[in-house]
C-alpha cells in the first residue's frame, strides 16, 4: 500500500514543471515516507503490529507493519534520502523515476503481509533494478544487466511456483513462518527458499551480484546495494528463521566473499564481494535462529545498508572524478580527493567493526550469538571474515586508490559534484551516530526482539583493537604484495557464461547437424518402405538383377519386419500381463 503510493508519486516526477521544483519533489518523497514511518512508530495509526486489509480478486491482501518490517523500512528510507541527494545532479528524470519505483517496490515488498503482493513487488523490484544497471550506458553494463535479469527471473519464477503450490496445498496466502521438513509437503517452501536465496546472493547463486553492481550506473548502484539483497534478507528472516543450513551457508559465504574480494582489481567489484560477505553474516544469523542472532542479522542489515552505501558513494565519486575504477589505473589520488578519502574511511572503519562506528554495535551481535550457541567453526569463519573485511576495505582499497603511487598515470581530474559530498557526509554522520551512545540505543530499540546486549564492554573493545592493529601491521609490512593485478577472476558464473555458451554453440551446430542427418536418413527409410509396400515386386526384380538399391530395399524390408515383430511382441505382452 505504502509502496504503491510511492510508485505512483514517483511516476509524477517528469510532469512537475520547473527543474528546481522537480528536484525538491524528488528529494522529499523519502523524507515524507520517513515522517510517515515515525508517526507509525509513535502510534498514530494504532498499536504495532498493524494490519490493513484490501480485497483483490478473491483474495484478501494485507499490508502488515510490525517491528521486523518497520526496521527494514526505516533503513531503506534513510538510504533513499542519502542516495537521492547523491544523485540529484543527474539530468535524466527517468533515472530518478526508476530509482523511486525501485524504492517504492522494496518498501511494498517489506510491508507485504501476503504472498501475492510480495511477488508483485518482488518483480517490480527486479525490473527497475535492471534499468538502473542499463542507465550506465556502456556495453558491459548492457550485458551485465541481461545476466542480472536472467538470475532474477529464475528467482521470481521459483518464488511464483512455490507460492502457487503453497496456495494450492493450504489455501492460505499469508506470508509467514514456513517450516521445512524433508518430505514432499514442503516442496513449495524449498522453491520459495531458493527464490529468496538467489536474491540474497547465497553461494553458489551469488555470481550476479559482483557481476552487475560494478557495471551499474554510479548513482543507481547506491540503491541497488541497499534494496534487493536486504529485502531478501528480510524475507528469509520472516519465512525461515532457524533453518540450520542457512547458518552454515552464511558462515562459508562470509569467508568466500572476503577471499574473492582479495583477488579482484575493480574497486566496486571488491566492495560487491564484501556485500556477499556481509550478507553471509546476516544469513548465518537467521540460520542460527536465536532471538539474539536474528537481532544481530537485522541490525547488521541496518548498519550495512548505510555504510555500504557510503563506501559505494566514495568509490562512485572516484569514478565520476577520474573515470577509472581499476586499481592498476588508480593511485596517488590523496592530493586531489582528500575529503572523499576521509568520508570513505569512516565507512571502511564502520564495515570492519571498529569501536565507535556502526559496524561494531551491529556485527558483534551475530558473532556473539554463534559463541553463545557454542559453534566454534562458525565463530572462526565469521571472525576470520572480519580480518578480510578490514584488510580489503580498510587497507587494500584506500591504499591502492589514494596512495600506492606518487601520481596516477595521465589523470584527468574533473572534481566531485558537491551534492555527492553532502550525501556522503550525511551517511558518514549516521555511521558514527549509530555507533555511539544515543544512536545504538535507538537502533537496539528498533530491533524485533528485546534483548539485553551491551557492545561496549572493555574486554570486547580491547580484543577488537588488538585485532585491528595486528591486521594493519601485517598489511603494512607486506603492502607491496597487495597491489591490484589486472585479471578476470572466475567465479560460479563461469558455468553459465562459458559452459552455457558452449552448450548453446553445441546445440546450434553439432546438434542441428545431427538432427539434419537423422531427418535425411529417416525420410530415406520412409521412401524405401513406401516402395516396399506399393511395388514389392520391384524389390525382387532388382535384387535378381543384382542392383545395389534392391539389396538396400531388402535390408530395409527386414528392418521393418523386425520393428513390426517387436511391436507384436510388445502388444501380446500388454494383453497377457
Amino acid at each position, binding site marked *: 500500500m505504502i509502496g504503491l503510493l510511492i510508485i505512483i508519486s514517483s511516476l509524477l516526477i517528469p510532469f512537475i514543471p520547473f527543474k528546481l521544483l522537480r528536484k525538491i519533489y524528488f528529494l522529499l518523497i523519502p523524507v515524507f515516507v520517513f515522517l510517515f514511518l515515525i508517526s507509525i512508530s509513535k502510534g498514530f495509526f494504532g498499536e504495532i503490529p498493524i494490519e490493513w486489509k484490501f480485497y483483490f480478486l478473491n483474495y484478501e491482501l494485507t499490508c502488515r507493519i510490525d517491528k521486523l518490517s518497520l526496521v527494514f523500512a526505516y533503513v531503506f528510507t534513510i538510504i533513499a534520502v542519502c542516495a537521492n541527494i547523491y544523485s540529484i545532479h543527474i539530468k535524466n528524470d527517468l533515472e530518478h523515476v526508476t530509482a523511486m519505483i525501485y524504492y517504492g517496490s522494496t518498501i511494498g515488498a517489506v510491508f507485504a503481509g501476503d504472498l501475492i503482493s510480495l511477488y508483485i513487488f518482488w518483480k517490480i523490484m527486479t525490473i527497475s533494478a535492471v534499468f538502473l544497471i542499463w542507465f550506465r550506458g556502456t556495453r558491459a553494463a548492457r550485458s551485465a544487466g541481461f545476466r542480472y535479469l536472467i538470475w532474477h527471473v529464475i528467482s521470481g519464477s521459483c518464488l511464483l511456483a512455490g507460492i502457487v503450490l503453497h496456495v494450492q496445498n493450504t489455501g492460505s496466502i499469508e506470508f509467514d513462518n514456513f517450516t521445512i521438513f524433508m518430505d514432499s509437503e514442503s516442496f513449495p517452501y524449498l522453491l520459495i527458499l531458493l527464490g529468496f536465496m538467489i536474491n540474497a546472493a547465497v553461494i553458489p547463486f551469488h555470481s550476479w551480484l559482483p557481476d552487475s553492481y560494478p557495471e551499474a550506473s554510479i548513482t543507481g548502484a547506491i540503491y541497488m546495494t541497499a534494496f534487493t539483497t536486504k529485502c531478501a534478507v528480510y524475507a528469509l528472516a520472516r519465512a525461515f528463521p532457524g533453518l540450520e543450513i542457512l547458518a552454515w551457508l552464511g558462515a562459508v559465504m562470509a569467508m568466500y566473499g*572476503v*577471499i*574473492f574480494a*582479495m*583477488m579482484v582489481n575493480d574497486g566496486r567489484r571488491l566492495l560487491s564481494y564484501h556485500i556477499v560477505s556481509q550478507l553471509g553474516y546476516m544469513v548465518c544469523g537467521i540460520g542460527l535462529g536465536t532471538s539474539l542472532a536474528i537481532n544481530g542479522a537485522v541490525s547488521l542489515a541496518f548498519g550495512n545498508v548505510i555504510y555500504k552505501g557510503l563506501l559505494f558513494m566514495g568509490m562512485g565519486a572516484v569514478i565520476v572524478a577520474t573515470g577509472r575504477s581499476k586499481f592498476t589505473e588508480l593511485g596517488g589520488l590523496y592530493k586531489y580527493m582528500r575529503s572523499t578519502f576521509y568520508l570513505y574511511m569512516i565507512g571502511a572503519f564502520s564495515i570492519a567493526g571498529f569501536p565507535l562506528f556502526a559496524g561494531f554495535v551491529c556485527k558483534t551481535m551475530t558473532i556473539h550469538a554463534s*559463541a*553463545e550457541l*557454542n559453534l*566454534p567453526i562458525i*565463530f572462526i569463519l565469521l*571472525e*576470520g571474515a572480519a*580480518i*578480510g573485511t578490514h*584488510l580489503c576495505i580498510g587497507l587494500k582499497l584506500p591504499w591502492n586508490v589514494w596512495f600506492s603511487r606518487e601520481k596516477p598515470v595521465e589523470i584527468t581530474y574533473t572534481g566531485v559534484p558537491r551534492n555527492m559530498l553532502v550525501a556522503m557526509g550525511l551517511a558518514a554522520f549516521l555511521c558514527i551516530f549509530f555507533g555511539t551512545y544515543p544512536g545504538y540505543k535507538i537502533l537496539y530499540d528498533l530491533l524485533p526482539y528485546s534483548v539485553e546486549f551491551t557492545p561496549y*564492554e*572493555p*574486554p*570486547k573493545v*580491547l*580484543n*577488537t*583493537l*588488538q*585485532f*585491528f*592493529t*595486528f*591486521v*594493519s*601491521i*601485517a*598489511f*603494512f*609490512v*607486506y603492502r607491496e*604484495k*597487495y597491489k591490484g*593485478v*589486472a*585479471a*578476470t*577472476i*572466475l*567465479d560460479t558464473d563461469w558455468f553459465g*557464461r*562459458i559452459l552455457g*555458451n558452449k552448450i548453446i554453440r553445441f546445440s546450434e551446430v553439432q546438434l542441428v547437424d545431427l538432427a539434419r542427418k537423422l531427418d535425411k536418413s529417416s525420410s530415406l527409410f520412409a521412401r524405401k518402405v513406401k516402395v516396399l509396400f506399393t511395388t514389392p515386386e520391384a524389390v525382387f526384380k532388382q535384387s535378381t538383377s543384382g542392383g545395389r538399391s534392391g539389396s538396400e530395399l531388402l535390408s530395409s524390408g527386414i528392418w521393418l519386419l523386425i520393428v513390426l515383430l517387436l511391436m507384436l511382441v510388445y502388444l501380446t505382452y500388454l494383453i497377457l500381463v
Partner: protein
Amino acid sequence: MTKVTIILGLLFVLVEVPVRVLVKHKHHFVWEEIVGFYALFGFFGCIAISVFSKFLSSKILMRDEDYYEKRYRR
C-alpha cells in the same frame, strides 16, 4: 605509520593483562584464555587469507582481463 601501529598494537596487548584481572568476562571458547589471542589471530589470519587467495587466484582462477569478451566473439 608502521611503527606507530606496532607500538599501539603491543600497547593494547599489554593493557589486556590488568583488564583481565579487573573486569570479569565470560569466555565461550578455550582459546580466549590466551592473552593477546586476537592479536595473534588477526596477524596470522591476515597472512593466511592473503596467501590462500593469492594461491587460488594465480593457480586456478586468474584469466586474462578480456577473458569473457574474447569468448563471446564469434
